[in-house]
């Protein structure tokens, strides 16, 4: 579903991603795990068409990636991209005007689930509620591919719990391919079908999470630590 062929990304002298070749199959939830600065976000941004690789090619659903891939890919940024003077409802309407696959019924259902008032002004929302709203705007799309950059980062346990529950409730794991970055591996691992470990812009390994537990008797964190150790 998502293919990277010899992809590299340099920022001036800094190598963010180095010669990555990767194929993520369709369906399920894939965790992209690694320490800060390992290149996780750079990979997601390249798949979403937001930045161009310095070298190599990317494909999503057999289509070469460019800015227009946004039609197939819903991207949840680590940053907030809201107009502060908008209400929650304005923001939902705006998103609906930008994407043909936006499912208004689901958006409403999710707002209720997240206990978000459509009439609230964005500028009056707490950080946690802005995090929840971002999730609503992303998951209300019937996009075949959903990319999420650190969906839990910087949020308190209550908010994280509601976000994890909403992911389970509103993602269709059979029809949608979800890739998310996280360094909260312990919290997220029951959600992952597979994980990809990344360090210094290189892929260290990819495995099904239940295989890691069944055949190696390891937690995903331990599996990741092993790969990190072997790399040193």
């Amino acid at each position, binding site marked *: 579903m998502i293919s990277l062929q010899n992809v590299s990304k340099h920022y001036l002298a800094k190598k963010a991603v180095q010669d990555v070749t990767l194929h993520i199959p369709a369906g*399920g*939830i894939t965790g992209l795990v690694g320490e800060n600065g390992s290149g996780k976000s750079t990979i997601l941004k390249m798949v979403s068409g937001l930045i161009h690789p310095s070298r190599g090619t990317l494909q999503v659903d057999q289509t070469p990636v460019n800015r227009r891939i946004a039609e197939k890919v819903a991207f949840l940024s680590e940053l907030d991209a809201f107009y502060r003077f908008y209400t929650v409802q304005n923001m939902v309407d705006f998103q609906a005007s930008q994407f043909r696959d936006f499912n208004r019924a689901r958006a409403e259902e999710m707002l209720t689930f997240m206990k978000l008032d459509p009439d609230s002004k964005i500028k009056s929302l707490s950080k946690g509620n802005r995090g929840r709203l971002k999730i609503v705007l992303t998951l209300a799309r019937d996009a075949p591919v959903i990319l999420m950059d650190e969906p839990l980062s910087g949020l308190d346990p209550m908010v994280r*719990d509601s976000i*994890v*529950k909403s992911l*389970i*409730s509103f993602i269709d*794991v059979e029809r949608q391919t979800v890739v998310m970055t996280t360094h909260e591996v*312990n919290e997220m*691992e*029951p*959600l*992952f*079908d597979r994980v990809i470990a990344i360090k210094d812009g290189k892929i260290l390994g990819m495995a099904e*999470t*239940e295989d890691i*537990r*069944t055949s190696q*008797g*390891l*937690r*995903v*964190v*331990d599996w990741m630590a092993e790969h990190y150790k072997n790399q040193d």
Partner: protein
Amino acid sequence: MTHTFDASKPIYRQLADQIYWRILRGELRAGEKLPSVRETAVEFGVNPNTVSRTYSEMERDGVVESKRGQGTFVSEDQSVLDQWREGMKQSYIRQFVQEMKAMGFSEAVILNGLKTFLEEDNE
């Protein structure tokens, strides 16, 4: 999250155990419908694919049956459930006895200890 799993063991197996205990305790009865895959996934905070795997594993064990388009049900065949319940009992006893013997306790001591424990536990 309401449930925590041992992350070094397969989650689909641990989830099956949790549901099996509900059946053993009679919280889920013969013929009763199991919650949908999605509902169970939300309740336990796990991936829906994991729940699907749990349900098909339980079906292979013969304890539940999936009916096309309707969901997954606890087997209506009480004799199958009784047999499986008996099997669970045997396997837990076997494990207990093996471990006690491995620690060097004689059968008489095990039996006596168990009896005393149960009597005290009832008080």
